[in-house]
């Protein structure tokens, strides 16, 4: 069952983060006052950035003036869109691979099992030896630090993928979905082999 929970833990975490993101919304009740254009610079994650007021909040297949995450990345030609498609595809594939890699690393580092035996008083006044089994990692061990670094990278990439999907550009969204599917197909195959060897019935 632990294997199943680790499948669930990755994507819902991404979903929970997105609920807290602040985004402009198209309020059709009121007109858009120009004074709401924030004077902030066009940083990559500018929530109240002025450019977002101009962007459509519906799916489209634009090829002109498509901004992608960073201020310098603007797509204007089909060639650039093809390059962006490939890059986003590879990013989504890398994200799936990173998830699987983290799971297998975690399993490998949890092979270390510690048994502690301690005497406890028994029912008749006798002394019984109770054995405690501890499975896990220490906080300052290298595997845990590596897991933390990989977790940060995974969180950042998942936010990037969410922001790419939020451009509402049809080509880029298809790239995200196809990359996720291909990555899952390629890496989950490997995961099944790993799981068989180390997993026991839960």
């Amino acid at each position, binding site marked *: 069952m632990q294997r*199943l929970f680790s499948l669930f833990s990755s994507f819902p975490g991404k979903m929970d983060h997105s609920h807290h993101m602040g985004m402009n919304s*198209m309020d059709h009740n009121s007109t858009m006052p120009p004074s709401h254009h924030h004077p902030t610079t066009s940083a990559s994650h500018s929530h109240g950035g002025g450019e977002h007021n101009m962007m459509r909040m*519906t799916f489209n297949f634009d090829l002109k003036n498509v901004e992608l995450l960073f201020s310098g990345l603007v797509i204007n030609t089909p060639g650039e869109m093809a390059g962006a498609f490939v890059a986003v595809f590879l990013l989504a594939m890398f994200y799936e691979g990173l998830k699987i890699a983290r799971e297998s690393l975690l399993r490998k580092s949890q092979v270390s099992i510690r048994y502690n035996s301690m005497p406890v008083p028994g029912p008749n006044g006798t002394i019984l030896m109770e054995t405690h089994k501890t499975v896990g990692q220490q906080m300052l061990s290298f595997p845990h630090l590596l897991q933390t670094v990989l977790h940060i990278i995974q969180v950042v990439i998942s936010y990037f993928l969410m922001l790419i999907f*939020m451009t509402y550009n049809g080509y880029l*969204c298809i790239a995200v979905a196809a990359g*996720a599917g291909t990555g*899952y197909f390629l890496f989950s195959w490997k995961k099944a082999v790993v799981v068989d060897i180390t997993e026991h019935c839960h």
Partner: protein
Amino acid sequence: MAMHFIFSDKAVLLFDFWSVHSPAGMALSVLVVLLLAVLYEGIKVGKAKLLHRTLESLPVSSSQQVILDTDRDSASLDSPPVNRRPFRWFLCYFGQSLVHVAQVVIGYFVMLTVMSYNTWIFLGVVLGSAVGYYLTYPLLNTM
């Protein structure tokens, strides 16, 4: 620009043709979004079940046969003919990848509908996730 949750009967969700401008339309949209969230939860459980069934039908070495023998309900998947097994295995994984793509896309769609900052839609998503989880989570334990 409203960067906070609002109660409104007007919204444009996901696509150009999905524009809501009446209470009845909003009620219908909330229902659709609710079903979308239920579907997302169902797909999550479905993928886990598919993975479990795929792993049970893998060609295994004799040392793991002992573990799999305790699962009596997988007896029908235990010994397919050798020449059919790799192809069936490939089909299982391909099907799983398609389910994964569907999960990713529907997850993003639900996220984008919440991004409309409409409170009714958000409540629909929350309720749909609750109902979906409630209905499908017990199916996990029946494996």
